[in-house]
């Protein structure tokens, strides 16, 4: 494990049962030290060594991969994220909420007081069960809706089911994505191309279209785009263009939805340590040196984006719409 500052929040909470109630108890028990360890209140760690650096072990999993089987295991904020009521009473649906950035958002949203529905593929059930347990440990309602977003009918069912079980919907995180590294575009099969387009472009269309009639002024939509939207890797010809499309629809929809009081924004991650990468999203060599190209010298962890999703969802971010927030480790745009 990388070295940490003596008063890191992570160490402070270690040994305490995970969950908002436990975190709240810890804060109540020692308000002074709690203040001093909260990153938003002056805590400080070296961003280069805060998390694991390459080389990483050679590893691959069949698509879509499980976070629980990655080495090292990604950090989604399970033991570190502490909420402060920033999303109290909100109702969120997150696609791809079982792992990666979606999972980090789900954990953070729940600890900020939101009820959370997550969508994932049925084979991702082991990861999803952990997220459901974490949401419930935070004292919030958790709704699990497994299914493949490549079907329009399922996307509509997903939204309707989330609305029914949550009793409404005011945060939508369109995050699930498909990525398969293929060095030559002549080797991208029609089926693979269709898979990527359906998951990354059609599904957000179907889901946002179904969700909007349920969203009131103040509601927020967040789409996961990527540094790939601006600076595509040659082996991600198909994936990268879907992320450019995502960045673009954030901006067109912001113009449509601003007058209705609904905000929409994007998150553009750099190289982040998620199952998407080890299940065909990157070559084995790239996995071993993953993040080595970033000026911070390591990949990002999903937990490092949790605060961005919260920021874009919360009411305090009320003037932010049509924007893309990044976490690129020093490389890429925006």
């Amino acid at each position, binding site marked *: 494990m990388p070295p940490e500052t003596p008063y890191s929040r992570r160490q402070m909470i270690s040994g305490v049962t995970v969950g908002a109630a436990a975190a709240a108890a810890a804060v109540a028990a020692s308000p002074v030290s709690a203040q001093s360890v909260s990153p938003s209140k002056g805590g400080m760690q070296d961003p280069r060594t805060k998390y694991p650096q390459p080389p990483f072990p050679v590893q691959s999993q069949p698509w879509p991969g499980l976070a629980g089987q990655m080495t090292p295991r990604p950090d989604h904020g399970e033991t570190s994220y502490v909420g402060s009521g920033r999303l109290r009473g909100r109702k969120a649906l997150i696609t791809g909420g079982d792992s990666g950035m979606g999972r980090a958002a789900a954990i953070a949203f729940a600890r900020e007081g939101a009820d959370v529905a997550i969508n994932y593929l049925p084979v991702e059930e082991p990861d999803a069960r952990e997220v459901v347990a974490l949401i419930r440990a935070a004292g919030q309602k958790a709704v699990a809706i497994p299914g493949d977003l490549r079907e329009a009918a399922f996307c509509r069912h997903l939204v309707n089911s989330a609305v029914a079980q949550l009793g409404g919907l005011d945060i939508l995180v369109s995050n699930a994505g498909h990525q398969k590294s293929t060095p030559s575009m002549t080797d991208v099969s029609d089926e693979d191309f269709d898979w990527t387009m359906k998951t990354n472009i059609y599904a957000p269309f179907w889901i946002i279209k179904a969700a909007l009639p349920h969203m009131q002024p103040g509601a927020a939509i967040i789409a996961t785009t990527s540094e790939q939207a601006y600076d595509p890797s*040659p082996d991600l010809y198909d994936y990268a263009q879907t992320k450019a499309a995502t960045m673009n629809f954030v901006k067109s929809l912001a113009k449509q939805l601003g007058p209705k009081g609904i905000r929409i924004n994007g998150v553009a991650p750099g190289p982040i340590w998620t199952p998407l990468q080890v299940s065909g999203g990157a070559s084995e060599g790239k996995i071993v040196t993953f993040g080595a*190209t970033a000026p911070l*010298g390591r990949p990002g962890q999903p937990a490092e984006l949790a605060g961005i999703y919260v920021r874009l969802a919360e009411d305090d971010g009320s003037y932010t719409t049509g924007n893309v927030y990044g976490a690129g480790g020093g490389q890429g745009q925006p």
Partner: protein
Amino acid sequence: MIGSRDNPLGKCKIAAPRPWMAIALAAALIGQTAEAQDRIPPPPRYFVLAAAQSDQYEIAAAQDALAQSQNPQVHAFAQRIIDDHTKSREALRQAALTSGLPSPPQAMDSDQAALLASLQSLRGPNFDRTYAKQQVLAHRQALAVEQSFASAGADSNLRRVARLGVPMIQHHLELALQMRTAVGGS
């Protein structure tokens, strides 16, 4: 095959962030055997930085190669690089401390990061050819910097490290040239 006919110098953009590096690089790239004493050596702390960045980049690219390549010769080269540069990195760190300079960062420069990023996207013979091509180029660059500091660097302690580094890099360059021929690179 895509990539196989590319001019390696045209494809691999290596900028020269400092004047001394431009001079050293120009000599290296056009294959001149300019007399060492004609070159302007980098100041000690820039030499440490450049050498540390080379170590970091060489090791990362070799780790990529060990995971990605199926070619035994590429594997042997990559393992040799990791072994040698792990040692040279430590020798450099010790020398920097002895000379009262800060411990060199474990980071590559942005041009090296771009080379590694382009390598990360490749597989099979294309990976091997690109790796060999980049290694020839990277070692020519590293040799130029190392030679100029070895001959006239301002710090005797670091100059000794550079003198030890020159034959290592020369040998790596020979191996890289052999590897480039073996994998059909240009």
